[in-house]
């Protein structure tokens, strides 16, 4: 414990000066949802499966894909069910 006391006294803090110092996100972390809209077929699977009703897909003729990131619970269920894999989880969040 003495070692810990000295490391606490003379070492650097355990916390970071966020937002000036940011930790790099871990690979595979679920940060935020991204859609490669060029690949999207607007099938609406993601909208139907989303537990938080955060995605709205407009079908033909006005194809659209909208996503409310404040409703999103970042579960990744939409990414799992997307048939063309245009949805992905970006490990970064907040940008």
């Amino acid at each position, binding site marked *: 414990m003495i070692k810990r006391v000295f490391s606490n006294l003379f070492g650097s803090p355990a916390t970071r000066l966020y937002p000036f110092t940011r930790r790099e996100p*871990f690979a595979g*972390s*679920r940060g935020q949802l991204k859609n490669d809209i060029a690949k999207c077929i607007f099938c609406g699977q993601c909208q139907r499966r989303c*537990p938080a009703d955060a995605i709205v897909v407009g079908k033909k003729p006005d194809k659209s894909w909208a996503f409310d990131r404040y409703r999103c*619970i970042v*579960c*990744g*269920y939409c990414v799992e069910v997307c048939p063309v894999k245009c949805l992905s989880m970006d490990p970064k969040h907040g940008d």
Partner: protein
Amino acid sequence: MSKRTIIPFGPQHPVLPEPIQLRLVMEEERVVEALPAVGYIHRGLEKLVEKKDYNQCVFLAERVCGICSFLHSVTYCQGLEEIMSVTIPDRARFLRLIWGEVHRVHSHLLWLGLLADSFGFENVFMHAWRCREMVLDLLERTAGHRVMLGVSCVGGVRRDISDEGLADILRTVDALQKEFDEFVPVVLNDYSIKQRTVGVGKLTKEQAAELGAVGPVARASGIARDFRETGYAAYGEVGFKIVTETAGDCYARMKVRCGEMYECLNMVRRAVAAMPAGAINVPVKGNPTGEVVARLEQPRGEVIYYLKGNGAKNLERMRIRTPTFANLAPLLAMLPGCELADVPVIVLSIDPCISCTER
């Protein structure tokens, strides 16, 4: 008889992480009776189950609790797997055990910090939470999120852990063991912590059995009962040792949880060593028909899920009995006779989770 005063403890109180009110009937500095008032954080999650399909409700069950979230989703999935007669792959059972036990360590470290905070020992609070950060980082690296893991699904788990990830788990477990070896004996032998916890909030074995105490509260009163004994998930293969104490006071509850943290690390090591290869989930077809009572041991004790399906994609009913609900009656038995200054320590010693209780 001296004059009686009622002091409201909560719903907003510096030591309470979540809102519950205890109306303390006082005679001088001594508590004579405690009257609970709940209902400050009810969210209607059980009703919401009727509006979402059973796969979406895995994420809903996970959000019942912000601390033992993964174990809620596992209980829900185990219940549905029983209704739908699904046998999950061995690797999924082991992965559920690993994430579950790592979650238990994080919950106990959070609790240790909050308990230390309740009697003003800020150093222990910060030290426990610094260690907890290592656990949360491990969860994020392996599952993709710090608390809401979102990896359990009906039929197994969503995400696998690679060999490299398993090695990472072992490295973190060893680092945690080193930290525990350093600070747990100091915490358990500290003079001021003993002064605040030994003999405080006593619950006898008879009281614990009569009032239906669960989890570490029951085990600290000498009742060797743990639902993991039944061998669900991979507990049958990995095996574990029940940590019990007999004193039934706040110190015994602290000792039980500290002992459990070591036991969790040992279980994770054994599970990683015995990890079978193969698939991590099986496809599940159809909708649930029938009812089931699913039970599981959470960090706070045994949780009970009642699930009823009628062949539709949405469940007809979900009912949850959380461990804190079971431990509220024992808490009310612990409080009479204690001093007002000991109330925060006693309340925190049952590790109350009011959000779970009210759902």
